[in-house]
């Protein structure tokens, strides 16, 4: 068990190192922040001075060594655009992203799971069709468009909700729904198929044969088992929501990590892009590690197999 965990930990570290090299190189080959921070058309002297100030005039390997060295001290560097420590920026945005992701996740589960169960229990009946349409819309409508339509309807036309920004619970409603709908649809689809599979299994048949009431069969025997894959997916989705809500955060001017990343890419703010991608990657790696370890705890075949 110990070797297994150590090996997983090693793999995680390798992933992170590879990620740091990849993001470091990728963000650098595609654009020059010095040109973007001044107006295109600024004098060469100004651009060169800025490049030297940002340390971009040094060879690439030297920049990478400096980057890793400060990273090991827990220092992600200074944002080129904001000229403040990137980690502070990240921490100031993280609570907003977590809040938005938590609300979107709650919405997606509260909507996705009950509709999924209903759709599975009433296969091919009208409720199943309603669910299918809901899922189809959620999966196929782009989040920015959903967001804009909601702003037009709920803010401009009805005047119920603020169009954008943050601060109150009312600010949270539309971004959470816009972000959560896609995931609600995904969770609904998975709940439905997982429920259908479980409902066809031997032990559910046995429960029914024993004469248990249908509600109990579904709620206790089927639902509990069908929930496992849904929760696994939801866990991964939560990390995704925290990190890639770029479009929704931009439309609603929500100050989260996604928008920080988007701004970072637009301005080629290397330290911001590196930090958000690496910290997001670390989050995903950590979740995977926990899942791997939990699998081993649950399933002895994994534990002793290697």
């Amino acid at each position: 068990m110990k070797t297994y965990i150590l090996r997983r930990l090693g793999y995680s570290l390798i992933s992170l190192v590879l990620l740091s090299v990849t993001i470091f190189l990728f963000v650098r080959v595609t654009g020059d922040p010095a040109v973007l921070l001044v107006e295109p058309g600024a004098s060469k002297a100004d651009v060169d001075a800025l490049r030297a100030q940002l340390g971009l005039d040094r060879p690439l390997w030297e920049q990478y060594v400096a980057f890793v060295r400060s990273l090991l001290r827990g220092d992600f560097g200074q944002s080129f655009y904001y000229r403040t420590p990137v980690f502070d920026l990240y921490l100031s945005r993280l609570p907003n992203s977590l809040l938005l992701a938590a609300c979107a996740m709650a919405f997606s589960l509260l909507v996705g799971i009950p509709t999924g169960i209903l759709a599975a229990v009433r296969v091919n009946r009208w409720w199943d069709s309603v669910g299918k349409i809901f899922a189809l819309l959620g999966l196929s409508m782009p989040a920015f468009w959903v967001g804009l339509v909601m702003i037009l309807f709920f803010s401009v036309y009805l005047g119920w909700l603020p169009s954008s920004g943050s601060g109150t619970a009312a600010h949270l409603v539309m971004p959470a729904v816009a972000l959560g709908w896609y995931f609600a649809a995904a969770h609904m689809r998975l709940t439905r198929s997982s429920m259908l599979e479980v409902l066809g299994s031997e032990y559910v048949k046995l429960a029914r044969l024993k004469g248990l009431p249908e509600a109990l069969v579904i709620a206790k025997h089927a639902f509990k088992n069908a929930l496992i894959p849904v929760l696994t997916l939801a866990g991964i989705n939560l990390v995704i929501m925290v990190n890639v809500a770029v479009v929704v955060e931009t439309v609603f001017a929500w100050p989260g990590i996604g928008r920080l990343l988007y701004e970072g890419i637009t301005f080629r703010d290397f330290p911001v892009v590196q930090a958000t991608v690496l910290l997001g990657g670390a989050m995903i790696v950590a979740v995977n590690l926990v899942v791997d370890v939990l699998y081993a705890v649950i399933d002895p075949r994994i534990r002793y197999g290697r």
Partner: protein
Amino acid sequence: MKTGALVLVVVSLLLLPAAAAAAPEGTLTWAVHVSVAPTWFDPAETAGIVTPFMLLYAMHDALVKPMPGNAMTPSLAESWSVSKDGLAYEFVLRKNVKFHNGDPMTAEDVKFSFERYRGASASLLKARVARVEIVDPHRVRFVLKQPWPDFMTFYATPATGAAWIVPKRYVEKVGDEGFKKAPVGAGPYRLVSFRPGVELTLEAFEQFWRKTPSVKTLVFRVVPDESTRLAALKRGEVDIAYSITGALAEELKRTPGLTLAPTHFTFTTWLLFTEQWDPKSPWHDRRVRLAANHAIDRQGINQAVYLGLAKPAHNFVPSGMEYFWTPPPHAYDPRRARALLAEAGYPNGFDAGEVTGEMIYGGAIGEPVVNYLQAVGIRAKLRLMERAAFYKEYGEKKLRGTLHTGSGAPGNAATRIDTYAVTGGRYVYGTYPEIDGLFSEQANETNPRARQQILHKIQQLIHERAMFAPIIEPAFLNGVGPRAAVHGLGLVANFPYSSPYEDLKVKTR
């Protein structure tokens, strides 16, 4: 004696309303299209873009700056004079100017602010200025190494932030980082709170030397999406929304209670024919380049994209810049364009490869441009690139074919020509020997009139050779809601944002 007293009474009565100016009240809120950065709080970091001046005008003040009706208005300086030999610029400072923390503004602060300045053109300014002398607490003299006709263009306009004054004692006490966290200036508004990427709140500084501001609180909210900015304006969440384009601008115009307020700044877009120096390319023939110029309906693009509020361009130097030369327009004349192509040996047109541009302006303007070119037989395809990638490859001269490019960098005709039309310029693929020759000639010319003539000659040559196809000076379209009584957009010429802030007014219920 009696008359004297009477005059005194009348004068003091006349002065009374000014002395008893109403206390500032109300709030004006902006939906800003870009993320506000703390570097904009410090004039020393001004990066040669116009955006930071959105905040500099509120939090700080300059010796001389553009104000309504005068591009070089004495502000913290009451006046300035130039010595006969052109080597010394002397500024007489305004007395009784206070910074937000109560410190008086003196010559020490002016010298200090210049010396710590490290933004756009800092190296140029420092190479040209030999020293800054403090004559007395309210008199500063800038001594140049040699006469430099562009000194005021660089020192006293948004080309740099060198003339914007920060309090020496305070900056030395808190340091550069501390200053960005809690900036102190001599402007009409002071910082109350700032959340990066979210919101900035300023409050009126009642002791501002020019006048007590009328609006108590200014709020700048960052709203990156333009549909959302318009929605926020419609709902009355904000009073001014920056940058609303195309169809959304039309919707804004139609909405009762909202006003479309265009502003302009020194910004032009143009086509660059990178292959004109290659004898094998069709673009080598001046007639082909001229045909492209006649093929484009600039007014049509203006109508479609900017509701007719932009300016068709016939010179790549913006019309608002010093030493601008007004060219005879290349009229929209597709028949003439086709005839020119036939003359050049392309009666059936030719395959012109790609027109490459960045997403924002390359999409809005480049697309109709390519359609117009195709209509006369110049069969080009549009290729749009992400902005950062475009400027990287453009600067490295990796892009081929025709480019749709533009610049909003401040400066004058000379600085614009330097970057785009003279050998060694950042974005120069090639040029013509006469232009290089004339350009070095003007750089050593101290007589402004003679210099202007040379700079005009260069622009004329560029025009005659059809080195570029200038397209348009885009308008910056903004929306204004019903509460903003004076929104300040367009008051200062060639400045895109609301200003001067102390003149703004809000309707309070």
